[in-house]
C-alpha cells in the first residue's frame, strides 16, 4: 500500500494520541453520529433489507468462488468494446502500467475520480516521481490533497476536518495547485463548494487523461460503474480523451442484473440516500465518433495486490465482499474515538482492521495490532450490507498473529491460564489465595496492569469464591 503509511506507530499508541485530541473527537462524534442515525432511517424504509443483504452476500460469494472465470469474461467484453485490459500482480506493477500509459499520451497531468485502489497502491506518489501531477477531484479528496494530509475515512476522507479548517486549507493552498480561492472566503458550505467548483472546473476543461477506480465491473458486458455524489467523477469520466481505470479484481459482478441489488444497498448504507446521485456506467470506448461522450481510449488495470492471498483464506475471504460503503466505520465506537489515521492504512475502521492485515500481512507492529483494534462489539457486522462477519475475521486474524514468533510469551501465558482453568483444584486454590490476600491488593498496578488501573479501580476480590459459598450453603 501507499508509502505514506510506512513507519507509523501501532494502533494503540496512535489511538491513545487521537483520543486526547478534543477537536478531532468532536468532529468525528458529530459526523459519524449524524450519518449513523440517517443510515438507520434509510435502511428501515426497506422491508426487504435482510433479503437484499442475503442476496448481495450470495452474489459476491458465488463470484469469488469462480473469480478467474468472471475476470476472463470481463476482459473479453472490455476488449470487444474497444478497451484494453492490463493485469497487475502488485502495486509496483500497477503503478508502472499507469505511468507508462500516461507517458504514452504525452500529457503531464491527470484528473482523478475518487478511488480507493489507486490510494492503496500509492499511484499519486508514483506519478509524481515520473513528473506527472495527479489532481484529486472529489471534494473531500481535494481537501486532503491540498492539506498534504492523509484520508481518514473511506467515503468521507476529510471527516476529521471541520469547515473552519477546510476554509483555511482552501485559502492557504489552492493557489499552489491552480486557481486560488476567492478573496474573503468564509466557512459557509456554499462558499466553500463554489471555491472548489471554480478550482476544479479549470482542471476538468484542461485534462486530457483521467484516472479512476470503479465500484463494480460487469463481466457479461464489460461495463464499469462509478457511484459518486458530486458529479465531479462524471466530469472525469466523460471529458478527457483517455481514461485509465484501476480496479481490484474482487469488484467484478457476473451480470448487469446483479447491479440491482447493490445499487439499493450501497447508497443507503453509505450516505443514507435512497438513490445514488451520480451513477456513471461506461462500456469500453465511445462508439459515436470523436465528438461523442466518453473516452476515445480506455484502459482497465486489474489489480491483485494481495487479493488472491485473501481469497485463499476460507474465513478471511469474506472481506473481499466489501463494497466500501463505510457503514462499519460510522457505527464503530473505536473508530469514532481513534479516528481513521490510527489504522495506518487507506482502509480504516473495522473493515480496515480485517483487510489491511490480510493485504499487507501481519509482520509490522502496526499491521499486527490491527486485529486487536476492536472490542468485538459486533455493531459493524450488524450494519454491513454484504454481511461480512467482521468480529469472526478479527478473531481469526488474532489467531494468525498469536501463532507468530513475537507471541511466544503471550501464547505460553494463555496456555498456562487455560491449564489452571482446566484443573478445578488449581483454580480453587488460586481463587482462595486471592480471597485471603485481598486486603493486601494494591489500588494501582505496575507494568501492564497499569492499563487497567490508570482509569479504573480493580474489582474487589470477594471473601470467598462462589464455589465455597455453594459448598457451605447447598453442597
Amino acid at each position, binding site marked *: 500500500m501507499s508509502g505514506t503509511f510506512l513507519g507509523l506507530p501501532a*494502533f*494503540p499508541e496512535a*489511538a*491513545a494520541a487521537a*483520543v486526547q485530541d478534543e477537536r478531532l473527537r468532536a468532529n468525528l462524534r458529530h459526523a459519524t453520529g449524524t450519518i449513523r442515525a440517517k443510515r438507520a432511517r434509510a435502511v428501515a424504509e426497506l422491508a426487504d433489507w435482510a433479503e437484499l443483504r442475503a442476496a448481495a452476500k450470495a452474489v459476491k460469494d458465488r463470484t469469488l468462488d469462480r473469480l478467474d472465470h468472471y475476470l476472463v469474461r470481463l476482459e473479453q467484453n472490455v476488449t470487444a468494446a474497444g478497451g484494453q485490459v492490463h493485469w497487475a500482480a502488485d502495486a509496483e506493477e500497477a503503478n508502472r502500467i499507469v505511468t507508462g500509459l500516461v507517458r504514452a499520451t504525452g500529457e503531464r497531468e491527470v484528473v482523478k475520480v475518487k478511488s480507493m485502489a489507486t490510494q492503496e497502491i500509492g499511484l499519486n506518489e508514483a506519478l509524481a516521481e515520473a513528473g506527472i501531477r495527479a489532481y484529486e477531484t472529489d471534494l473531500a479528496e481535494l481537501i486532503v490533497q491540498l492539506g498534504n494530509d492523509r484520508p481518514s475515512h473511506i467515503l468521507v476522507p476529510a471527516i476529521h476536518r471541520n469547515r473552519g479548517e477546510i476554509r483555511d486549507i482552501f485559502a492557504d493552498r489552492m493557489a499552489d495547485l491552480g486557481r486560488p480561492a476567492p478573496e474573503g472566503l468564509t466557512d459557509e458550505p456554499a462558499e466553500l463548494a463554489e471555491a472548489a467548483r471554480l478550482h476544479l472546473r479549470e482542471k476538468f476543461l484542461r485534462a486530457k487523461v483521467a484516472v479512476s477506480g470503479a465500484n463494480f465491473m460487469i463481466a457479461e458486458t464489460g461495463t464499469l460503474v462509478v457511484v459518486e455524489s458530486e458529479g465531479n467523477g462524471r466530469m472525469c469520466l466523460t471529458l478527457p480523451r483517455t481514461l485509465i481505470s484501476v480496479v481490484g479484481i474482487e469488484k467484478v459482478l457476473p451480470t448487469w442484473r446483479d447491479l440491482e441489488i447493490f445499487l439499493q444497498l450501497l447508497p443507503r448504507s453509505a450516505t443514507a440516500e435512497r438513490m445514488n446521485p451520480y451513477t456513471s456506467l461506461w462500456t469500453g470506448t465511445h462508439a459515436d465518433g470523436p465528438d461523442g461522450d466518453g473516452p476515445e481510449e480506455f484502459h482497465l488495470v486489474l489489480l491483485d495486490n494481495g487479493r488472491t492471498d485473501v481469497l485463499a483464506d476460507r474465513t478471511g475471504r469474506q472481506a473481499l465482499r466489501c463494497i466500501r460503503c463505510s457503514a462499519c466505520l460510522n457505527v464503530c*465506537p*473505536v473508530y469514532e*474515538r*481513534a479516528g481513521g489515521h490510527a489504522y495506518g492504512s487507506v482502509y480504516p475502521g473495522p473493515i480496515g482492521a480485517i483487510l489491511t492485515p490480510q493485504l499487507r500481512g501481519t509482520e509490522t507492529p502496526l499491521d499486527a*495490532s490491527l*486485529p*486487536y*483494534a*476492536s*472490542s*468485538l*462489539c*459486533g*455493531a459493524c*457486522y*450488524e450494519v454491513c450490507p454484504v454481511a461480512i462477519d467482521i468480529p469472526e475475521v478479527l*478473531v481469526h*486474524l*488474532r*489467531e*494468525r*498473529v*498469536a*501463532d507468530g514468533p513475537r507471541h511466544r510469551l*503471550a*501464547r505460553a501465558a*494463555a*496456555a498456562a*491460564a*487455560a491449564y489452571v*482453568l*482446566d484443573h*478445578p483444584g488449581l*483454580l480453587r486454590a488460586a*481463587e482462595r489465595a*486471592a480471597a485471603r490476600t485481598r486486603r493486601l491488593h494494591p489500588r494501582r498496578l505496575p507494568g*501492564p496492569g497499569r*492499563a*487497567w488501573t*490508570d*482509569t*479504573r*479501580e*480493580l*474489582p474487589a*476480590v*470477594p471473601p*470467598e*469464591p*462462589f*464455589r465455597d*459459598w*455453594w459448598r457451605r450453603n*447447598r453442597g
Partner: protein
Amino acid sequence: MRVALFATCVNDALMPSTAIATVRLLERLGVEVDFPAAQSCCGQPQFNSGYRRACEPLVRRTVRAFAGYRHVVAPSGSCVATVRTAHPRIAARAGGGLAAAVGELTPRVYELSEFLVDVLGVEDVGAWFPHPVTYHPSCHGLRLLGLGDRPLRLLRAVRGLELLELPGAEECCGFGGTFALKNAAVSAAMAADKTAAALATGAEVLCGGDTSCLLHLGGTLRRQGAPLRPLHLAEILASTEAEPWRAP
C-alpha cells in the same frame, strides 16, 4: 424442574453475589438448581485473543460438566454467546467427535433472561427493588444472542423500580476482554462516555447482564467517585420485600 447453573468463572472468582442471586431467584421460582463443580471457564478470553487451541480442553470440560441437564443457565450474555458461536468453531477444528457433543449441548444453554422469559414464561418474577435503574445491554447479549427487550420486560415488572432509558444504550461500554488492556485509552474513553450517559439519567443503579462489563464500568465509576452503582440483573431480580438486596 432441575437446571444446572453455569456460574461462569468471572462470577465464581470475582462476583459471587451474581451467582448467589441467580440461585436464590431460580429457587424462588420453584426451580431446583445444581452447580456441577467440574465447570470452569468457557474459554472466551483465550478464544477472542486468538488462542483457539488453548480453548479445546475448556470446551471438552464444559460439555462434560453439563452432560445430562436439559437446561443450563448462565447469568452472562457473553459466556452463553461463546458457547453458542465459538464452541462450534473450536470443536469443528478440534476433531475427535467434539463437534457432535458441542452441537448437542449448545441448544440447552440459556442466558438468564432467556431462560426466565422463554422457558419459564415469566416476566414478573416477584421482585421488589425501590430504586431508579438504567440498563446497559451488553453487546454479546444484544447482538450475538438477540436478547432484545427481555431484560427490560423483566425489569419493568419489578415493583418499586423506576426504569430510566439509557441514551446510546446499544453502544459498547469499551470492555471487550483484552481490548480493555491492549487499547486502554480507547476503552477508557468509551467507558467515560457510557458512565456519563448513565449518570445523566439520574439512576442510582446501572444494571447489566454481563459481569465483566459491570466490573469495567464499576471500576470507572468508583475511580470517578460517581454516585452510581453497577448491579447485575440477577441481583435486582433476586431482591424481594422479605429479602431485599443488600450491599455486600
